[in-house]
């Protein structure tokens, strides 16, 4: 059943996303192609326009990723379509899990497309060397390899986005617990949850700083040691993972208590 739920959730979320993926990739390739041609003023202008559109498409992908996932949740769980969703012979756990998995999968593909587009547009020998050099610098000072540095960076950002998505969903659930809460309030609650969690992570890092002078330097000095960044990033991943599980279980619990569809 989970697979079937996932099939319909993914279909719905990907519908506009795929279009933006294609557009973004198309304009990224056009931008790149124009750059490889001989330069003239008109081409430079077209190039600028194309790269501008590519950036706009990338932003569109991100916005649509969030909007599609949240909109799917609202429509499926609380609006007219909820009359079907909640009468399907499937547990609420599975319905919620399918939404979370959909968020993870769509976020992942969006990341892949965004990174690919940036690479297509910006990656040439010069910039690659530059990127490699700067990454190598930090990698050496952080005492780890380039690939692991990239992975840690991507994972952190990925978890951050996922947490934001799931906090938004939790906001919607809490917002609807009391029957007459409006969408705006739900959004505020979701954002509030996210902010509170962020503040808690800051506090946790600060507390960790009390034990670890390296980390404390983030709070005291402008200069940050590489060790501190490394510890903070690893801590961040741990904290985000814990948050995601907490938000997951709280949402699941609340949903399982039953819904009240208008």
């Amino acid at each position, binding site marked *: *059943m989970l697979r*079937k739920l996932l*099939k*319909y959730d993914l279909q*719905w979320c990907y*519908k506009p996303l795929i279009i933006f993926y294609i557009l973004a990739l198309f304009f990224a390739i056009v931008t790149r192609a124009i750059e490889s041609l001989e330069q003239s003023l008109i081409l430079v202008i077209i190039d600028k326009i194309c790269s501008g559109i590519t950036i706009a498409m990338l932003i569109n992908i991100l916005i649509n990723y969030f909007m599609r996932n949240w909109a799917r949740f609202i*429509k499926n769980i609380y609006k*007219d*379509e*909820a*009359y*079907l969703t*909640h*009468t*399907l*012979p*499937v*547990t609420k756990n599975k319905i919620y899990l399918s939404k979370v998995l959909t968020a993870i999968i769509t976020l992942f593909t969006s990341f892949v497309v965004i990174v690919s587009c940036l690479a297509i547009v910006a990656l040439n020998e010069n910039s690659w060397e530059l990127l490699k050099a700067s990454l190598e610098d930090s990698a050496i000072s952080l005492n780890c390899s380039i690939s692991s540095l990239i992975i840690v960076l991507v994972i952190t950002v990925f978890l951050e986005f996922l947490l934001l998505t799931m906090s938004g969903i939790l906001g919607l659930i809490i917002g609807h617990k009391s*029957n*007459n809460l409006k969408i705006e309030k739900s959004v505020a609650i979701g954002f509030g949850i996210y902010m509170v969690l962020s503040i808690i992570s800051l506090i946790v890092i600060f507390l960790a700083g009390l034990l670890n002078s390296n980390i404390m330097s983030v709070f005291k000095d402008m200069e940050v040691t590489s060790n501190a960044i490394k510890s903070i990033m690893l801590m961040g991943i741990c904290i985000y993972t814990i948050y995601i599980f907490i938000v997951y279980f709280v949402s699941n619990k609340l949903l399982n*208590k*039953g*819904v*009240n*569809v208008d």
Partner: protein
Amino acid sequence: MELVKCNNLCKEFDNKKVLNNINLSIPKGKIIGLLGKNGMGKTTLIKLINDLLTPTSGEVLINGEKPSVNSKKIISYLPERTYLDKEMKVYQILTLFEDFYENFNKEKAINLLKDLDLDINSRVNKMSKGMQEKLQLILVMSRDAELYILDEPLGGVDPATRDYILDTILSNFKEGASVIISTHLISDIERILDEVIFIDKGNIVLTSSADELREKENASIDEIFRRCFKC
């Protein structure tokens, strides 16, 4: 065991009682009219049976169990509103029903849609409101369910459509299943009812066999209902 049983069921919205201590049992193999004026709690009761609302107190049991995956397998529910994703095409919706409901009879649905001359390649949002309602009715009646719950299936439709709807219900519900039809348009459906339940201001005011009630009061159910709830 009763198919559906409500024990001291209450539902409040913002401290306003919408259902007040409902005790009710729905037997197997009957067509039951849930009759009441608008806003008297019919839909609330139906939504509680379908797990779309959670009781403030008391409980609903279906085959002795609270609403669950098991109850959803055997209940086929037609809500008042359109619950389909309007961007989908009819055949996609048929597949969706086939995917989730083991007892969905796709061929039956396709045949019923053919009778209506409905192209299964059309998109839901391109269809008229009336057609969307008929599509939903067909989806719901194409399941071999044990309980069909139809919320105001006759609301706001013309007399010809009313006949179509009643015919579709009668000729398609599974033998031995129960059907709950909620409505305020009593005269149109009373001839097919076994049992009637009168609901008013969140209370069950009467439950009876339809024919017994007619014999006792020497009047149509519609007439008796009007007498009961004179404004």
